[in-house]
């Protein structure tokens, strides 16, 4: 059920984009208005969410330490998994963001008879996640060639590197396949692992189907209908220069693809996809474990009711005196 609704939703969204242009002729709506709205919602939403997070202070310094602390001179600290300097924190964060360091630790726990609990390394999720995210990034950058003239060198470079394994025309991009394979894996594990299925919500399947929809429709456009790339670029440049045009030779399927992308952009700020920004702000990762070295300030620290020594002594003075424990007030 949780998987079916998003699947249908994505199919419907695609059809809306496709038929909305092909049948209803709403080119301005699907080719210009919605993309503009999507971009605005995406950026404003992103900023809004991050500002909202930032508005909540970090009252305590609570890093999760995953290595030896810095203490005695002769004990070698682990400056990355348990950073105590800003530089260490930066390295830790870079590893988390670029290489999903924590996910790489993933283990699989099994119970054998006895009972015996056994742990084995389990890097499949890490592999799938890395494959998906990196190929998504590469594809995103590759798309820059539609929006720029002249095309920046790194886009061309990526484009050539990605198409390195040329198998006929058009060039096959490795990332097209990696993206779809990785997304399929992420989807299948959600569907077939009983625990994952149990925790998975519509909010989890929807982005996966949406991304798969985007990937498949893009794939279709490129390799099957072989849509007119030059015309697509004309359309894209038109959008960038705020003079939208809708060349005839652009396949109507393209508008289905575009509409899914717009949906992703609009959906992004309101969803778990915000982990992209959130990961930078996570207080268990982005703080140095220098707690005893440098005092952390809590902006809302307030006085609390305590039991003072004087009150304590009042409670126990006679007993203390009898036991020969010195007291302040005889």
């Amino acid at each position, binding site marked *: 059920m*949780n998987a079916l609704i998003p699947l249908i939703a994505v199919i419907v969204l695609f059809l809306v984009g496709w038929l909305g242009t092909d049948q209803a002729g709403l080119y301005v709506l699907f080719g210009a208005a919605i993309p503009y709205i999507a971009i605005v919602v995406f950026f404003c939403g992103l900023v809004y*969410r991050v500002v909202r*997070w930032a508005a909540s*202070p*970090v009252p*305590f*310094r609570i890093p*999760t*330490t995953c*290595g*030896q602390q810095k*203490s*005695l001179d002769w*004990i*070698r600290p*682990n400056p990355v998994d348990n950073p105590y300097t800003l530089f260490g924190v930066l390295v830790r964060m870079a590893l988390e963001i670029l290489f999903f360091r*924590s*996910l790489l*630790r*993933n*283990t*699989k*726990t099994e*119970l054998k008879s006895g009972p*015996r*609990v056994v742990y084995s390394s389990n890097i499949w*999720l890490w592999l799938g996640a890395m494959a998906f995210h990196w190929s998504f990034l590469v594809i995103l950058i590759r798309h820059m060639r539609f929006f720029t003239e002249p095309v920046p060198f790194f886009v061309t470079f990526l484009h050539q590197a990605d198409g390195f394994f040329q198998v006929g025309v058009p060039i096959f991009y490795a990332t097209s396949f990696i993206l779809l394979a990785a997304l399929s894996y992420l989807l299948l594990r959600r569907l077939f*692992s009983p*625990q*994952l299925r*149990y*925790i*998975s*919500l*519509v909010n989890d399947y929807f982005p996966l189907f949406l991304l798969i929809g985007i990937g498949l429709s893009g794939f279709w456009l490129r390799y099957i209908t072989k849509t007119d790339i030059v015309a697509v670029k004309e359309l894209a440049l038109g959008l960038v220069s705020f003079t939208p045009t809708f060349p005839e030779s652009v396949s109507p399927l393209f508008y289905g693809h575009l509409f899914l992308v717009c949906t992703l952009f609009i959906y992004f700020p309101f969803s*778990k996809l915000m*982990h992209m920004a*959130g*990961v930078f702000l*996570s207080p*268990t*990762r982005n703080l140095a*474990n220098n*707690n*005893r*070295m*440098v*005092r952390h300030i*809590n902006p809302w620290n307030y006085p609390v*009711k*305590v*039991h*003072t020594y004087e009150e*304590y*002594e009042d*409670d*126990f003075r006679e*007993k*203390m005196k009898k036991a020969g*424990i010195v007291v302040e007030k005889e």
Partner: protein
Amino acid sequence: MATPTPDTIEYYKKEKLSDIDYEPPAGGWMDTPVNFRPGSWIYPGKAKHLQYLDLPNPREWVVTEKDWKLQENWKEIVLKGMSERLSKYRSFKLFMDICVRCGACADKCHFFIGGGDPKNMPVLRAELLRSIYRNDFTAIGRVLGKIVGARELTEDVIKEWFYYFFQCTECRRCSVFCPYGIDTAEITMMGRELLGLLGLYVNWVIEPVANCFRTGNHLGIQPHGLKDTLEFFADDIENATGVKVKIPINKKGAEILFVTPSGDFLADPGTFTCMGYMVLFNELDLDFTWSTYASEGGNFGLFTSHEMIKRLNAKIYAEAKRLGVKWILGGECGHMWRVMHQYMDTMNGPADFLQVPKSPITGTVFDNARSTKMVHIVEFTADLIKHGKLKLDPKRNDHIRVTLHDSCNPARALGMLEEPRYILKNVCRNFYEMPENTIREQTFCCGGGAGLGTDENMEMRLRGGLPRGNAVRYVQEKYGVNQLAAMCAIDRATLTTVCNYWAPGVLVTGIHELVANAMVLNGEKERTINLRQEEIPRAESGSAEKGGAADVR
């Protein structure tokens, strides 16, 4: 023979307890109600303790009854409390928003591993709260409701929170594996604070809190009682070593204030660790003092609310100031060190009336504690050993084959991993590590932390203790390990039960118990019994050279 009750280990057949089904039940988790079976939950906090601490809604109530006697406007209270905490803690807000339900944390929690209840997967534990967050604090949740994982706050949700937020030991293991560092312990802490607003506490936590507030320690030991206890320990020490140790109490002008969890005063084997400290300090002729007012290092406030952490913790610095000490030394405890390390300075500092800690024996300056001014005793002792300041005869511990249980908080809130190992290897010649997925930052909880270590919760303790118990049994079978060292007072109490059940034959010890047993003391008599007042087995003829103590160093 009386039939065993659910608060004893005999009640639980191993075959049955370890027949664990990781397959979640049919039907959605939101439609699966809580089953309060005996042995898996903790008695409610008594009204008198809530009253003493000025906490809301003090009353007597019963977990298994339908009516939990909540306030009229309980729902409003909870939602207001959530809103307040969302704006005060970025951690809370962020963790509510960014989980992708990748499931990496799912099989990392000892309660899930040992029990299979899907709501003990950290991600689902968090969803218990997140579902309410979606419903009342996000636009999509408000509009789309259940299909996007939102649900309405009802009394059943509160009961579910009570059950599962007291089935989390706030050990932070899940946080190590989460790609965003989502710390379910933090979410549990928020959940418990919200329950607290309704007067829903467990007695195993709130009674110690009330005791600590009044008497200075969780156990409610009064000043004269503490003195008696320490004197009693001194007698035992003299019996074992021939040395009469000094017991400075509330001594003004001492150089160091020593604070340790009160568990060390009461229950074996923690008491032997306490004797260990006393032997060490006496041998060093350390200018230190005990305090009857700050007689608790631990802080069950951590299992109650941030405010309560601060209320209990305040007396540490206050006492240091009153006594005019230079710095503070802390004993072997787990959660205590999360508080001392991550909260104390922020809450009750700055400790500008103290000095940067410096070992009077070695001259080492503990620069890592330059702001908080509090040093962990294993840092202190490791430094002593490194500088050759202790005469050690580790052969006395030859009958012991020891492994180290990294306590959750020293491992995952400080990273105190090598110090205890260094000490252990110097005081005992047979040290073995448990499998690598069960130690250091990946260490498993004892199953009884965060206020869950009470007997009425026995089933969950045994289940939660399975991964640790299993790792212990592994080294027991493989290397003949017969002692498990732990630098945590809760561990010393709860792991004893866990080992009895899952790895019978393995005893639990503190680090400084082994240190003191290995120490060659000035003016000691021939050491034939250890701090447990047990005969030290003679070295077998194989390990020949009759070691004068000094040459073992």
